[in-house]
Each structure stands twice: as structure tokens, then as C-alpha cells.
């Protein structure tokens, strides 16, 4: 099999793809790829669940196929749909062509017309008029399938997803079975707004993604905002780490750290100070209640323990 030989190499390759994974996450990704078992990622929003899938696709040289879940998502949106308007247009075009032929060629033969109907039907329900949606698309070519925020979809959809993931094949009544030659690497993410069903968890590797530790976070921000001053990045990561210790409604994720570092850099800051931090707080703390709570202790948070 091409690709990384062991977990350490995967970490290195992910690093080259600008995703700094910890050991657990890399191990999980590696196993998902090698043992063809879906990976269920849970964790606070903004810890890099989605970006792991993107980086993994890059490392493995596959396409990323993303299926964003939402309430009420159904097979037509996730699997495939027929292009009805085009089918209709096709029927009409053929009809017109036949009429032309008939008027120019004299009397029409009945058996030829009958033949046409059969051929036409076969043509209408062919791959040409099939609109592949993410699940089908991920089976048709080597890919990394990202099923994002599964907790937003309904229970019934989960059962349906299980069915597809069980043997990486989809049966289309009019067309036949589409089987993946190379099974996709499946990454399922959930924000835990509801508990994902046990049956699905059983078929997946389960991994809880933690906030990165300080060093890793500094490295991540440096990578994503290379133009920013090193001292600034260092300070931002430290303040964010302290913010996570505070009792906030929504502790900032890595995405917020990156946004904040970028915002401060754009304002020309080379280090975090109380005044600029107060002005740009909206980049990192996004609830009014949290901002009010932080406002009083901002100086302490920015200066750090003496």
C-alpha cells in the first residue's frame, strides 16, 4: 500500500500538510486508513476535527468528499438523485427528432417505434442522468469521505449511513450496484448535540479530540499565521490557554486562537497588551456574557500570573 509506513510517518506527512496532529489523533487516522474502518471524531468545536480530514486527503493523495449533515437530510441529498429535468428534456428532444424523421421519411414502422421506447428507457436510467451526491461520489473514486456534524442529522439517517458504510456499496434499483474499488477513508465528526447511536459507534474507532497543549497550539498558530511576530503568537496562545481555564460559556478553540493572532497582527501588534486585547476580544470570546466576565479580569489574563 502506498502512503505512510507507520504512525510516525503519518504525523510527519500531516505536518507537511500543515496539520499538526497529536499521537492519539494520528494513530486513529492511521488505523482508519489501514483497517478500513470509519473514524468517529468527537470534541469541542474548533479543535481541528474537520481539518484532519482535509489534511488526510492531501497526505493520501485522494479527493476530499464532504457530506455536511443537517436535520432532514435524506438519501436524495446524500447518495444520489436522478436529473429529472434533463431526462424530461431528453424525452422531448427525442420526440421532436422522431416527428421530424417521420414527416420526412413517410410512413413510420411500428416495430421501430417500439424499439425506440426500450432504448429510450435504458438511456434515461443510465449513469448519464445520475447525479452523484457525496456518498456515491466517495465510492466512485479513491477518496476521504468526511461526514461532518453527524449529530445534526436524524436517527434514521444514521441507520442509512451505517448500511452504506458496512460494505461500501450502494444499490441503485434502475442501474445496479456501485461498489467501491478502493474503500474511502471515512471520517465522521460530531459535536455531541445528541448521542450518536451505539450501532454506529461500534463500527467506528472512537476518538475524542482534545484542545492541543500550549506548545502544539503555538506551533499551529505559527504555521497558520506565519507573518505574525513570534512573541505575539506565543502571547496569544498563552492568554487563550488561560481563557480556557476561566468559566466560559464557550471556551475558545484553536480556530479562535488563529483568528485572534491574525487580527492582532493586522492591527500591527507585536505582543499582546491589555488595550489591543480589549479591542479585539470579539475574535476570541463570542458570547456577551463571557465578554462581560472577561472584561474585569482581562489585565490579569493578559499579564499572566506574576
Amino acid at each position: 500500500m502506498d502512503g505512510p509506513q507507520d504512525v510516525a510517518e503519518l504525523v510527519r506527512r500531516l505536518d507537511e500538510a500543515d496539520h499538526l496532529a497529536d499521537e492519539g489523533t494520528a494513530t486513529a487516522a492511521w488505523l482508519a486508513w489501514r483497517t478500513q474502518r470509519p473514524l468517529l471524531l468527537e470534541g469541542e468545536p474548533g479543535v481541528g476535527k474537520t481539518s484532519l480530514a482535509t489534511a488526510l486527503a492531501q497526505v493520501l493523495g485522494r479527493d476530499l468528499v464532504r457530506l455536511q449533515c443537517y436535520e432532514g437530510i435524506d438519501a436524495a441529498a446524500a447518495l444520489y438523485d436522478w436529473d429529472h429535468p434533463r431526462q424530461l428534456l431528453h424525452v422531448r428532444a427525442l420526440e421532436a427528432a422522431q416527428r421530424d424523421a417521420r414527416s420526412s421519411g413517410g410512413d413510420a414502422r411500428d416495430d421501430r417505434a417500439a424499439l425506440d421506447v426500450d432504448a429510450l428507457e435504458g438511456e434515461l436510467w443510465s449513469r448519464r442522468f445520475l447525479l452523484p451526491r457525496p456518498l456515491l461520489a466517495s465510492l466512485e473514486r479513491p477518496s476521504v469521505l468526511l461526514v461532518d456534524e453527524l449529530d445534526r442529522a436524524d436517527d434514521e439517517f444514521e441507520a442509512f449511513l451505517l448500511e452504506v458504510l458496512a460494505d461500501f456499496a450502494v444499490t441503485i434499483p434502475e442501474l445496479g450496484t456501485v461498489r467501491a474499488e478502493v474503500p474511502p477513508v471515512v471520517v465522521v465528526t460530531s459535536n455531541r448535540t445528541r448521542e450518536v447511536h451505539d450501532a454506529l459507534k461500534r463500527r467506528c474507532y472512537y476518538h475524542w479530540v482534545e484542545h492541543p497543549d500550549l506548545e502544539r497550539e503555538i506551533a499551529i498558530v505559527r504555521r497558520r499565521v506565519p507573518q505574525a511576530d513570534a512573541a505575539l503568537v506565543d502571547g496569544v496562545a498563552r492568554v487563550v490557554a488561560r481563557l480556557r481555564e476561566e468559566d466560559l460559556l464557550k471556551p475558545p478553540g484553536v480556530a479562535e486562537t488563529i483568528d485572534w493572532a491574525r487580527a492582532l497582527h493586522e492591527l500591527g501588534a507585536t505582543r499582546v497588551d491589555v488595550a489591543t486585547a480589549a479591542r479585539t476580544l470579539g475574535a476570541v470570546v463570542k458570547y456577551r456574557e463571557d465578554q462581560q466576565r472577561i472584561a474585569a479580569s482581562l489585565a490579569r489574563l493578559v499579564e499572566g500570573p506574576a
Partner: protein
Amino acid sequence: MSVAAPDLVRELTGLAAALRRAGVGVPSAGVATTVDALAALGTPDRSATYWAGRLTLCSGPDDLGVYDQVFDLWFSRAEWAGDVHRGTVVPTYRDAPEHGDEADAASEEARTAPPTASRLEVLRHRDVAELEADDRRLVHTLVRRLALRPALRRARRARSSTRGRTDVRRVVREAVRTGGEPVRWHRRRAGVRTRRVVLLLDVSGSMRRYAETYLLLGHALVRSAPGSEVFSIGTRLTRLTGALGAGDPQRSVEAVAQRVADWSGGTRLGDQVKAFLDGWGCRGLARGAVVVVLSDGWERGDATLLGEQMARLQRLAHRVVWVNPNRARPGYEPATAGLRAALPHVDAFVDGHSLAALEALVDEIARGGRRA
């Protein structure tokens, strides 16, 4: 399977068994998956073993703390392993529900004489806390049968209907069949879905006499309205939904009794509502739901916090209903500091002392389908 050394398979099986004893719901196929994963990882060193186990045996963030503990103990055990095998030492991070003997519960029920209609009518309005054991049992049987009808909300998915927008896709789909001529004109309109109902059950000392009745109500809720959630609040927050899922209400209530650590302890309502919102509510559990708080509002902590948190809850939830069993007492005034802080942020404040009151509560939950 054969790739991993045989003793490793035994170790992993032992690890899985220890995890099960500690209350982690390890799937039965779990160990085989662990072995496969470990084989795929190559050298089974400590770190590979740790991750192979964690990725396959755990299924939620709550499991991870237990896993770390059990893993450490299991692989650095000396005399400990023997103790686990004998069952004298069990990691006590979480209470695993154990099933007791329920044989006599059924016979007790059989003894109860068939109630007459008039007796029932009287009982319906009596305060459950003041009932004799026999009457209470009867009322509880009726509480179990309460079927909750959750409020409805607009669904995203449309359903076919005789009125509403034209269903272009369906019209065209059928037109293909009729040679491109649309014959029937289909329409679709938004469907409805049930709203989630969340019960927050106060299990502090002052609510003790109603706790069993309310747990049975919780059981009826979990059984009749899928997706509902029940939490106990007291000195700490406990999620009861899983324990209440058992078919037999009595067994459910016993499983819950084991899980709740703070029966009849003090109340820190503000902290608990906050814990609920931080841990569950914010992530979407309370969003658009009908949240029912069953409590008398005795607050040991700071009532201001409770007020703040109730305001937060109301912003998230569709409706907040506060049930107070004491409300029906003659001359009752909402005097407790906690209740006074909470009431401005509550959509409905209702009784909860009798069967009739609980029936009214069921109606209250189903009411007010859509808020503007």
C-alpha cells in the same frame, strides 16, 4: 487475530472485562477490534496498546477518564489483577447499574384490589406525599401510564400534501413516465416534528416525598417520547435517561437510585442548571426543547446565579415549565429566594402534587406548539 501474541489477547480481554465492571459499555465485538487495531499498529508497545484500546473500547468522553484509570491499573497491576478477578476491587469511578431481584414486585401488584372509579377520582386530586402506601402504589401505576404528547415544531423536510407549494421534482419525475406530459399536480408542505422534552428533577431532601412519583413520570416520558432526556439535579448533575430506558419502571427507578449519588442531599440549583447548560444544553439538547424543572426552589447557593442560569435556559429553550409540588398548598406564596429569582424566566408555573396535576402538566408540555 493471529498476528498479536496470544497472551496479549488475554490481557486485552481482561482489560475489556475490567472496563465493563467499571461501567463502560464495551461492545461485545470490542476486543476483537482492539486486537485487529493493535496488529495493524505493529509493535504492541504501551502507547500502541493504549490507543488501540481507547479507540475501540470507549464510546464517549465520559469513558476516557475511566479508561485511563483502568488501563493504568490493568497494565501495572501486581496483586490488583487478582483482586479484580475475584471482584473484591472494582474501579469506582461510575456506578454501574446492577439488577436486583424483582420477583416480589409483581406479586405485590397482583395483591392490589381493583380500584373503583370514585376512589380513583378522589385519589387523582390527593397530594401523593400524603397517600397511604396502597393508594400511592395505585397512583404510581397510573403515573406510569401517562403518555407524554410532546409539543410540535415545523420540520425541515416537507411532506406531500393537497395544499402548499408545487412539488416540482415529483411532477417532473412522474411526467417522465407519461412521455413528458405532467398529468397530476403534486404539492408539498412543511411537516411537523416533535419537540424534545427535558426534565430536570430536583432530588434534594425537601423534594424527597415526590422523588419516586417524578421518577416514574420521567420513565413514562422516556418511554413514550423518544429523544426526551431526564436529569437529576441536587448537589450534582446526573443524566438519568439511560437508566430510565428499561421496560420495567420499578427496575428503572432502582437503577436510577444507584446512579444518583446525592439523594436527599442539599440543593445547589443554580450550579446544577449551569452544569446542565454547560455540559448538555449549550450543545443543543435544550435548544428548541420544552424544559420542565421539577423543584420547590430551595436554593442553598446564591439565588442570583440561579436567576442568571434560568435566563440563559429560557433563551435556549422553546418553553420553560416550572413544577412545584408545594404550589397547591392553601395560602402558598413563592417565597423561597431561588424560586423568586427563577420565576421571571419561566413560561409556566404549575402544580405537581397530585395525579391530576401531573396530567395537567402533560397538557402543558404539549401546549403552545409554536412560539412566535
